[in-house]
């Protein structure tokens, strides 16, 4: 298992996440896709850390996970708030800049 394999997997995961963000029409799926992208990045960090023999990659991964948890909490709260307003989870329903 060389670094290349990890990075390819990471790239594939990131692309899947990005495609999900752009193609899916459900806010919760969007959040899940963002989580996939973040974890793809985490994988790349850890792989680099192992390759260069440092712990920096793992440290930064913890930060990313913390931020991802916070993001998920805030994001889900927003999604609930939005759903209460429009009875919809489609992001296209929320284009007005104020209401």
């Amino acid at each position, binding site marked *: 298992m060389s670094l290349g394999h990890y990075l390819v997997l990471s790239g594939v995961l990131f692309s899947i996440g*990005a495609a999900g*963000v*752009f193609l899916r029409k459900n806010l919760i799926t969007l959040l899940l896709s963002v989580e996939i992208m973040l974890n793809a990045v985490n994988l790349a960090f850890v792989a680099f850390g192992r390759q260069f023999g440092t712990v920096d990659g793992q440290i930064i991964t913890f930060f990313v996970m913390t931020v991802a948890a916070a993001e998920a909490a805030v994001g889900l709260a927003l999604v609930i708030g939005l759903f209460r307003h429009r009875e919809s989870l489609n*992001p*296209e329903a*929320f*284009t*007005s*800049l104020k209401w």
Partner: protein
Amino acid sequence: MLALIPLLPFAGFLVNATMGRRLPKAVTGGLASAVMVLSFLLAAMQVWSLAAMPPESRQINQTLFTWITAGDFSLDLALRLDALSAVMILVITGIGSLIHIYSTSYMHEESDEAFARFFSYLNLFCFFMLMLVLGSNVLVMFVGWEGVGLCSYLLIGFYYEKKSASDAAKKAFVVNRIGDFAFLLGALLLVVTFNSLDFTTIALAAKEMPVEVTFGTLSLITLLLFVGATGKSAQIPLYVWLPDAMEGPTPVSALIHAATMVTAGVYMIGRNAVLFEHAPMTLTIVAVVGTATALMAGTIGLVQNDIKRVLAYSTVSQLGYMFLAMGMGAFGAGIFHLMTHAFFKACLFLGSGAVIHALHGEQDIRKMGGLKKHIPITYWTFLIASIAIAGVPFLSGFFSKDEILFETFVHGHQILWGVGMLTSLLTATYMFRLVHLTFHGDERFGAAAAHGHQADDHAHAHSAPQHLSTRAPQHLHDAPAPMAFVLIVLAIGSILAGYVGVPHALGGHNNLGAWLEPAFQATNCGAPVTTGELAGIAIAECPPGEAVEGAEDHAALELSLMAVSSLVAFAGIGLATFLWLKRQDIPAQLATQFSGVHKLLLNKYYVDEVYDATIVQPIKVVSQEGLWRGFDVKIVDGAVNGAGYFVSGVSIVLRLLQNGSVKTYAAAIFAGAVTILAYYFWR
């Protein structure tokens, strides 16, 4: 001490302008007249001490403070009294005092507020006029020059509720502005050329320069200054404002538009005599313009029917004489005529004021006649002044006008002399036409005055107080005591003023000429060692010096010229008497026979119309269509509106970016990130 002479009228102005409306008329008018009389006494004292000095160093200087310092150029607010300004301040304060006294009675029917306003303007005018003549450099003179223009504007438009008066005021102001602009250019050119504006410094420097045979810097400077003079002194082509200026109250016409302000241009040329002598081309232009103006105004004066307008054209004509003298280099003769003219023209104007006063505002001489026995004091003083201006021997106008014509003849300008003589004939004719139509012959005023009295739409009250017309037209009253006193003093002056300059040919000594002579040369009293030398050189160089010395040789010539001009004067008077007293049918016949010429003269050669068509209307069209509708609306407004349209147009496009769709934003962030990464990747 010198500064007090102008400052006294200024103090009078301050008091009357701030508190005048709450003071009774006796106080405001009395105060205004008192400061002028005091100023006159002070001026007389100063001139007296000036006369005690030796002729070459006759100067009293007073520097009030340094006004401008810039590099090596410095300018003081300084006053200088010399022989020339001495004559001027005596005329201004002397005639000015008399006219103030006259006005206290003439303007008495005005409201307290208008009365105080009138006297504050009049005082302010005297202040500026005195600054003009006492200023020792061009800039102080210019301040006075502009100041008198302002006061002239204010006083012409004194009855500002009347449209014709405010129009006339604006016309005077705008026309003067044209001349003032040229004057300012001349002054700036003086700074560039001499790095100084002091008259003495300029004169000393100019004396060292060669006389310009071809057109050069000095010619340009003097020409620009002369254009300034044509504005202020009502010469062709800028004379058109003066006849209209008669909309002002009559004392104003006497003081500003006859005796003092309009002579400022003549004084200015005398003040810069050395400069003008070094530019013979300009002098020729001055002489030709002066003569042409004299003739043109004289012919117009012949057919006008408004008593004040006849006098206005007469003033323009007489100013033309003064410029003729200046153009001949006979500066003394020009100033002499200025002085005598101040007396008889002030007397004529104030006399016409008394006539208008008596007739409750009637100014049309066709509706006068036979006033002689009703208002004898006015009649006799008016007659004396008319004789003086006509050039009848041994009155003031005779001496001064003959000196001018003599100098013209001696300098070899026979054509100009001939035109001057013709104008002299015209002068005598139109003045006596005025006398005959006003004071002699049938009484035409009763019906006319009654008519004007009933028909209020008739514009009969041109400048006299409107409510005078409420009195019965039959009650003609002669000038009240203060007015009569002033008229008599001025009439005596009209007789005697000429005796300060009796020519050598008549056994006199031309005292005024000798007194003025040093003022026209570059003398520097600060360096007495060279003074004698300078004066000697100047006399050797300049024509008037020779003329004065050579007068003995020309005595026979001068006497014969005098005889001719006396004959001309009597011929003019005779002609006027024949045409407008004995055979009144002839002028009417002539008018119909030469109706073209008559109409041309009656309409003042259509100069106003020509100016309107060639200058005023094009400016209006360019301003309205070009500057307003073109530049202002299209370009200035267009730029402002265009900026607005540009922003809102761009916004329509930019607004598409902010559509609220989260996915679009995410895509933009993604695309941006990819672009940056790609940049670093393939760099």
